């Protein structure tokens, strides 16, 4: 597969650290979190393979085009609508969590509206860019910030304060049955492949997607999932982790760079994940806008030879985003994200059904 495909998957894998996923997983640490992780890893990898090979058969085409061409309207329109909402919520989740993080740890006295404005001004511009530019921006953001994240992870892994006994205690809880919440939350990390529904439009060449590529994704995914779940336990401890709202913030605040320019690693973490969160929000909302645009097109909104429907969507996105962010409490955020994660299998099922439908349509 081409580079951009891996970027899409990678951004999602990394973003999962700053969504409520670790919190949900660690809540279940005394139950079946470990088994859920393993199952989600296998299922996620399998879905990645299926979705990637499907889109590989239709180079240069996104899901909206395929659905419109091969399936009846009563199926394609509701499906696309549902999907666009899911993608919007996925972006929203990252936005809200990160806004809360910034408010709590970087600029505690700042008004929530200001924090949101700073983020949304840039994100709105990014969402309205050409699809191609979204990919290019993602590449540059990853190129700039992955080194910092890798450095951060190295610091975490080689920190003498990381107590592996706690990690092992957590692993010893492998003998519990998996939980649905933990399973769907960890499945979220692997949703990156579904971004192909729009981005496949730009992948016009037939790609090779075989065992080697799958292994690469699998290895990266396994490493990131492992890190997401076990590293916080090594730093925060197994028995007291349940009380921690933002496990990863506490984890990175526990790493100290004795000789670094900045002593507290937490700021490096916040800065680099801010960039990744921006990329993730742009990707998700860009898809949401494109999906919405494929079903709703208001002809009257023409201005200087430009259709402004997409601008309208973005404005609605922003308003709803700001409203929800200021309305939600942290407790509600976690509860609603669990609910959102729980519906992920429906999204996947819908994606699989439409893939089958398209395949049938294409054959006949």
């Amino acid at each position: 597969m081409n580079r951009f495909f891996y970027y899409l998957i990678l951004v999602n894998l990394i973003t999962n650290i700053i969504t409520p996923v670790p919190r949900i997983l660690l809540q279940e640490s005394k139950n079946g979190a470990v088994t859920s992780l393993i199952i989600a890893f296998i299922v996620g990898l399998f879905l990645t393979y299926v979705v990637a090979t499907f889109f590989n058969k239709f180079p240069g085409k996104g899901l909206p085009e395929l659905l419109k061409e091969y399936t009846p309207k009563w199926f394609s329109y509701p499906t696309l609508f549902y999907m666009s909402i899911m993608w919007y919520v996925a972006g929203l989740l990252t936005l809200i969590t990160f806004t809360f993080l910034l408010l709590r740890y970087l600029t505690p006295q700042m008004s929530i509206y200001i924090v949101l404005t700073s983020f949304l001004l840039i994100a709105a511009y990014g969402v309205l860019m050409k699809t191609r530019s979204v990919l290019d921006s993602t590449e540059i953001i990853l190129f700039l910030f992955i080194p910092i994240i890798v450095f951060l992870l190295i610091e975490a892994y080689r920190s003498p304060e990381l107590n592996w006994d706690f990690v092992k205690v957590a692993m010893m809880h492998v003998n519990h049955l998996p939980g649905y919440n933990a399973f769907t939350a960890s499945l979220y990390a692997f949703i990156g492949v579904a971004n192909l529904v729009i981005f496949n439009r730009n992948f016009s060449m037939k790609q090779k997607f075989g065992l080697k590529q799958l292994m690469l994704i699998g290895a990266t995914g396994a490493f990131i999932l492992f890190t997401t779940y076990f590293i916080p336990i090594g730093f925060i401890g197994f028995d007291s982790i349940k009380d921690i709202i933002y496990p990863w913030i506490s984890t990175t605040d526990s790493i100290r760079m004795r000789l670094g320019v900045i002593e507290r690693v937490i700021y490096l973490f916040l800065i680099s994940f801010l960039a990744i969160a921006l990329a993730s929000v742009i990707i998700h909302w860009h898809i949401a806008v494109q999906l919405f645009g494929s079903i709703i097109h208001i002809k009257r909104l023409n201005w200087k030879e430009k259709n402004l429907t997409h601008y309208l969507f973005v404005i609605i996105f922003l308003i709803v985003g700001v409203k929800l962010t200021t309305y939600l409490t942290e407790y509600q955020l976690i509860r609603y994200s669990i609910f959102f994660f729980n519906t992920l299998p429906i999204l996947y099922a819908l994606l699989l059904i439409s893939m089958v439908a398209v395949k049938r349509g294409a054959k006949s």
Partner: protein
Amino acid sequence: MTKKSQGEPTPPDLMVELAGKLKPSSDVQQIPLQIEEKQAFLLYLKTVVDGLQLQNIVIKPFFELSSERHFEAYVNSLPNKVKMPAKEELLIELTKGNVLLVIQDRFVLLDLRKVNSDTVLQTTIEPTIHGPQLALSESLETNINLIRQRYHDSSLKIETMQLSDQSHRSIAILYDEKVVKKSILKAVKKKLNQLDTPLVQSSGDFQLYLTDKKFTLFPNTIITERPDRIIYNLTGGKVVLLVDGSPHSIVLPVVFFDFLVSMEDVYHAFWIAKLTILLRYIALVICITLPGLYVAVTSYSPEVFRTELALTVAGSRIGVPYPSFIEVLFMLVFIELLTEASIRLPKAISATATTVGGLILGTAVTEAALASNIMIIVVSLVAISTFVIPVNEMSYSMRISRLFLLGYASLFGLAGVILGFLGIIIYLVNRESFGEPYLRIVAKNREEEAKGDNK
């Protein structure tokens, strides 16, 4: 067409008409040549024609050759002969330094122009240590000559055309046929043909007319005075435009990274070149983010500092009456003034300006507690980093973008610096220069991996 009479020769009507249009300029010369049966007329502008050449090439042979027929044959074989343009453009050709010659009712146009600006200049804007020391001249032909002499390949194509503005300048389009992207060439030519501007003075304003957008911050083309940079870009498949009378060439399309290439990189060993390039990118980041970072860290999140540094910074700000962002703005304006002053002043005085400004005022400002010591360090570092950017236009753009970043930082704190920085990046990514993406990571077969789309 003309009446022929013995004795006093009468010039052809067209010539009289043309001469009439050029009057009352004092340098119009309309000279009849006549000896025995031979007869010819010359019309030219004295100030733009090389008199000596005219004497040697045209006038002398006229009196030496035996008949009009011989002279006509002689004239037709001259290398200076240029194609006769349409009647309307004849006047423009005359003002360029061409001589109109009439023999036996036949009109011939001879290029005998005198160009006083064809001396090749020293490189001043983009100096290098190891590279060629000479730049371009202010004459189009000399410039083409300079480039041809460095690039002996028949695939180098040079097309000249004339602008339709008041100055009627000649411009030349240079490209290497083998590597140039056809779509870009087509876009450039289309743009040139559509060009509707009142006056073109130099490459500087010409490149502005080439871009569609009126309000741009980042340059869409590179202006360079270095022949080696021109060649480097030609082999890279780019199109180069030369404007007559300007010692700079325009290279297009550009990508962001072109602005951080100094020709010196080509002349250095691998690691040295890589290190200097790395240094330049660090300077770029420092130059745009440092003022913003200073404000964000001192006023929003001082816990990012190490404790010792936080105390030092806090200590150095004791007594400074303004909030940090005014302090930074104040010092940035000061440094911009200093830069601007040293450009405008004659070279002999500009050194004094920098000394007075940089050293004396800097010390005095901290003594008077108008700005902190750390601030002076920050501003000097920023100023120096700006000068590291090899292409001047980009350093201008960066000077402005850091103000944007400063605003974003004083508004949103540390997160604002990062978001603003990313904002600049995605803005650049989304930009295009003649249909080519402005900023993206260069890699092999990238077109195959993801095609561009135009929404």
